[in-house]
């Protein structure tokens, strides 16, 4: 008798399957992977000003686009597609196999991370070619960038899975999820300069991870001199790490405890 495959190896298998399934849905591939670069093209063409010496709006906006890409690809996409999978009965079928729930979650996290890496690559190419994007310099910036993307993907995945409990049906899911994401984007300084927002918006945004992801990304893409223009007069990367970690734990807790395999 052979042993049942481990949860991690099955998670990697699921990741491969998720990517393959995703790659075959051409419309969503194009929209998901090009969405940040399309938005950059729109906003970069409209706002050509600099917001501080040597800091273009495109530069500021790139940070926000990567942060909100993490939210769109993880939280939003999963909170909409998982209820659909549940409606189809696909989740119930998985539930009846020896595949553990953790493997399913790992598969989703792999899909989100791979999708993010591709989106970021597209955004860099588009930004460099057309909008004078200045790439981060220095190993410390790239290290910050790497943990922000990885922790951000994990956090966004976990919260997307956790939130998938809430929509009653796949059809209604996007009506529940999309407004939340759009409001968070406005409040968190993705489309606007965060410090110019009313304080009550800033305070609400500070509860949620997107504001911190965006701020963290600014620490990567904007010159350190800009840090003094942040509300706390610093990038607060340690605080960002803690906030994302707390949300990751909250997301995993609800995903594991409350995950719904079946409609009723």
């Amino acid at each position, binding site marked *: 008798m052979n042993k049942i495959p481990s949860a991690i190896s099955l998670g990697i298998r699921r990741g491969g399957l998720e990517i393959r399934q995703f790659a*075959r849905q051409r419309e969503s591939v194009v929209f998901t992977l090009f969405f940040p670069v399309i938005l950059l093209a729109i906003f970069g063409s409209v706002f050509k000003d600099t917001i501080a010496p040597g800091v273009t709006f495109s530069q500021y906006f790139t940070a926000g686009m990567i942060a909100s890409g993490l939210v769109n690809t993880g939280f939003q996409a999963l909170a909409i597609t998982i209820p659909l999978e549940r409606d189809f009965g696909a989740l119930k079928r998985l539930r*009846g196999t*020896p595949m553990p729930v953790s493997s399913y979650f790992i598969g989703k996290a792999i899909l989100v991370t791979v999708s993010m890496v591709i989106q970021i690559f597209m955004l860099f190419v588009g930004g460099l070619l057309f909008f004078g994007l200045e790439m981060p310099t220095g190993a410390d910036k790239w290290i910050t960038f790497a943990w922000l993307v990885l922790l951000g993907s994990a956090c966004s995945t976990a919260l997307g899975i956790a939130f998938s409990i809430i929509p009653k049906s796949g059809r209604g899911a996007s009506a529940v999820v999309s407004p939340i994401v759009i409001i968070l984007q406005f409040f968190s300084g993705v489309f606007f300069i965060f410090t110019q927002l009313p304080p009550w918006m800033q305070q609400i945004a500070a509860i949620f991870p997107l504001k911190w992801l965006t701020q963290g990304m600014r620490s990567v893409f904007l010159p350190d001199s800009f840090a003094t223009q942040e509300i706390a007069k610093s990038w607060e990367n340690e605080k960002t790490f803690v906030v994302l970690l707390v949300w990751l734990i909250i997301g995993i807790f609800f995903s594991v405890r409350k995950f719904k395999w079946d409609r009723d």
Partner: protein
Amino acid sequence: MNAIEVTGLRKSYGSVHAVRGIDLSISAGEIFALLGPNGAGKTTTVEILEGFRSRDSGEVSVLGFDPRNEGNAAREWRNRIGIVLQSTSDSGDLTVVETIDHFSGYYSNPREVDEVIHAVGLDEKAGSLIRKLSGGQRRRLDVALGIVGNPELLFLDEPTTGFDPEARRAFWTLIENLRGSGTTIVLTTHYLDEAEALADRVAVINNGQIIEISTPSELGGRSTAQALVTWRDGSEVKSEATDNPTALVNKMTAIFNGEIPELTVTRPSLEDIYLRMIGKTHE
């Protein structure tokens, strides 16, 4: 040891008593059919056995395991069972062979993917995307995913709904082959002929209780039920219900002095018996 042992199973949804004290023993290697109208408690019972639903009370053992348990022991248990649910559909962006191959990776001793595809008759569709399959072909894929793990116990919930008669016959052969390999099968079906062709024993459930458990040929006193003899006498079709059809036919043969016109001898079909049983409990 019995594959499935259930005593005093109860389950209510609010004020609706879906299952009201069910006892069942299904032995290893048996094909056991659950019959009953919609809402009789069939699905609830099976889903409790499959570990999908909780129960209010009663003892349940499936392959020696209580399906309400979770964790690693549940994984080991699920490795030994196969489940074909009533309705499943996927996004359909994978091919038949990709899907079966992927699912086979969940189990410790899976069947060969090619062998499974052949067993369900999807050889020609192996490379097709799932969304291009017909309803019956999808159903066969469902069955393939249920058996790919080489289960000791297989649950089939209305497996042939949407099959054409030929596909149904092919499916029956597949089930016969599984029986040959010693798989225990729990089948729920609406098709009485299917239960009759496949099942060693059938249980009829109605209003959350088992009315009778028996072999298909003995259910509801079918084997001892009166036979109906009909024949033509001049312009009239006559019939007589009798316990001794052979004697009656002999008598008639003498009367007609040879061939009896339009002679038929029928016993109640499983369907007749079943409908009578279901009707009886409605009174």
